[in-house]
């Protein structure tokens, strides 16, 4: 065997644990999504309240009900129903809305963009502010700045989005009347044509979201600033600003990835409430409407989508961290 071939083999074997880890984690994520789809289906279909009742309303006769039940395939075994549903989902067919009759995929596609605009807008405002305040608070630990930032963020974290959103709507929408108190947009048009309606929902998301990032970042910076490598850099006479930027923040990379992931996961729940507060036509508000109307296919489609996103964010964060921080690979 030549030396180069041996080298390649050694290299492959050295990389093997990471690849194996990636495979294992991806497999677990796929399994989890399958399990989630099963739970979603079971929770909406098995439990009381047949879809036929929903469509026909209270006045329907037993014969009508039986006929529609047969038509919808609700008399088949549950596993068979799940099978045909999941087969459709894998081909992009989520069924049809019971309320409007339009395909669920069309319903989702129309609202997904609106939710993404809201979420991305919130992240763009949230992240720079939180990084600055979190770092400042961590570096100036125990000083007045830290007390103010920590205290306010601890309070904001427990403030429900519907309370902060309502108060913002009252102050800026009604009392000062400078911004629209609701974010209703005509069907088919983009929220970007009237960006003013985005300001209050984005602010609402930022209230709780940035408080969260600030707290996590502060804890990370406090830990890093107390570490030996920061002490060593200081003793070597490295200027304080450089110590913070070069040594403390760089080593907080892994926790930062986790913070971003957790923020994305939090946003999934955050948009549901915030969109409802402002009647903003996104996925979250669509889900709440569908649940209220018990429009089961729409609920199934949106929940499977949001839960899958949630799981994939987790997977991506774990993979990024393991690639960024070689130290953690020893635990694989």
């Amino acid at each position, binding site marked *: 065997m030549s030396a180069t071939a041996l080298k390649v083999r050694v290299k492959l074997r050295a990389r093997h644990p990471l690849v194996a880890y990636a495979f294992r984690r991806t497999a677990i994520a796929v399994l989890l999504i399958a*399990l989630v789809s099963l739970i979603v289906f079971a929770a*909406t279909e098995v439990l009381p309240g047949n879809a036929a009742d929903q469509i026909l309303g209270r006045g329907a006769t037993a014969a009508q009900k039986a006929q529609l039940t047969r038509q919808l395939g609700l008399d088949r075994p549950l596993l068979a129903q799940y099978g045909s549903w999941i087969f459709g989902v894998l081909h992009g067919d989520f069924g049809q809305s019971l309320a409007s009759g339009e395909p669920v995929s069309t319903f989702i596609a129309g609202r997904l963009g609106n939710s993404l605009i809201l979420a991305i807008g919130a992240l763009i405002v949230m992240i720079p502010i939180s990084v600055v305040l979190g770092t400042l608070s961590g570096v100036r630990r125990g000083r007045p700045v830290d007390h103010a930032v920590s205290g306010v963020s601890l309070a904001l974290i427990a403030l429900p989005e519907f309370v902060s959103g309502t108060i913002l709507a009252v102050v800026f929408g009604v009392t000062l009347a400078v911004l629209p108190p609701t974010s209703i947009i005509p069907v088919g048009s983009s929220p970007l044509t009237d960006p003013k309606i985005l300001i209050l929902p984005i602010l609402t998301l930022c209230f709780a979201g940035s408080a969260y990032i600030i707290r996590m970042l502060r804890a990370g910076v406090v830990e890093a600033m107390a570490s030996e490598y920061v002490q060593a850099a200081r003793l070597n006479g490295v200027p304080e600003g450089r110590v913070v930027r070069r040594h403390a923040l760089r080593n907080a990379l892994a926790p930062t990835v986790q913070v971003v992931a957790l923020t994305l996961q939090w946003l999934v729940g955050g948009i549901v409430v915030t969109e409802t507060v402002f009647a903003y036509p996104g996925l979250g508000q669509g889900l709440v409407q569908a649940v209220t109307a018990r429009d089961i296919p729409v609920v199934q489609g949106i929940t499977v989508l949001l839960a899958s996103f949630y799981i994939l964010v987790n997977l991506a964060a774990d993979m990024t961290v393991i690639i960024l921080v070689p130290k953690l690979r020893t635990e694989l």
Partner: protein
Amino acid sequence: MIAASQPRLRRNSQTLTSSWPTRISLVVVVLLLLLVIFGPLLTPHSPTAELGPPFARPSSAFPLGTDYAGEDVLSRVLVGGRSVILIGGIATVIGYLIGGVIGLVAGYQRGLTDSILMRGMDALLAFPPIIFLLLLATGFGNSLTALTLGIALIHVPGVARIVRTAALETSVRGYVEAALARGDRVRVILRREILPNIWGPIVADGGPRFTVSILLVAAVNFLGLGIAPPNADWALMISENRSGLTLNPLSVLVPAFMIAALTVSLNLLADQIARAHGSSVDVQAMRR
């Protein structure tokens, strides 16, 4: 041992009441709990009776005005905190019971039982909490039982994890081996030897969990999928009176203020208790 543990206890109680925000939040929490207990006795009118025109401004008969259905806002505020605190409290306790049992069994039995139980917990964690609750609302309708159990289930993985870790640590200590040597049964060992020794982390974790439960109940109520009208609830009042914001702003602002005072002060207090136990549990990490 006693001499060493006493100063620590004193330090804990000092930190608990030494800062002003904590003292204020303690007072607010106590006042709100008293309000929830005695509020229903103080209502000037029936909280669910149509007494006047909708969204009337405050008057001597209705100090906070009326709401969308002409009901007395003050009476509704006085009884409107019950459901959130009760459902939140019961859900947290149930979550602890189920999670505690699973964690104890997993940590004590180890091996296959442990991995099966903990993988099951991972599956539960795959749902964003509010989405999970909306799913239950679709299946069960506006069922408060389903809401309570749903919130309890959301806490189960976190509680199980803490209890399992603590049980793993304690089960290798001398007193458990001594009990095993005595021939005590597993159930007795879990209850008498392990549970008392892992109480600390459970207490530290309890405050933030209660806050999370309240936030979740309130969110579901606000979305109109929890407690149903005409029942009075702070969160529900905010959404049902939203259309009358310009006519009688108090019908929205007073309930909003009540719920904010409750969750914020409870969180400040919980943070202080967790710190006194040397823990750093975070509400937001549980809210996800």
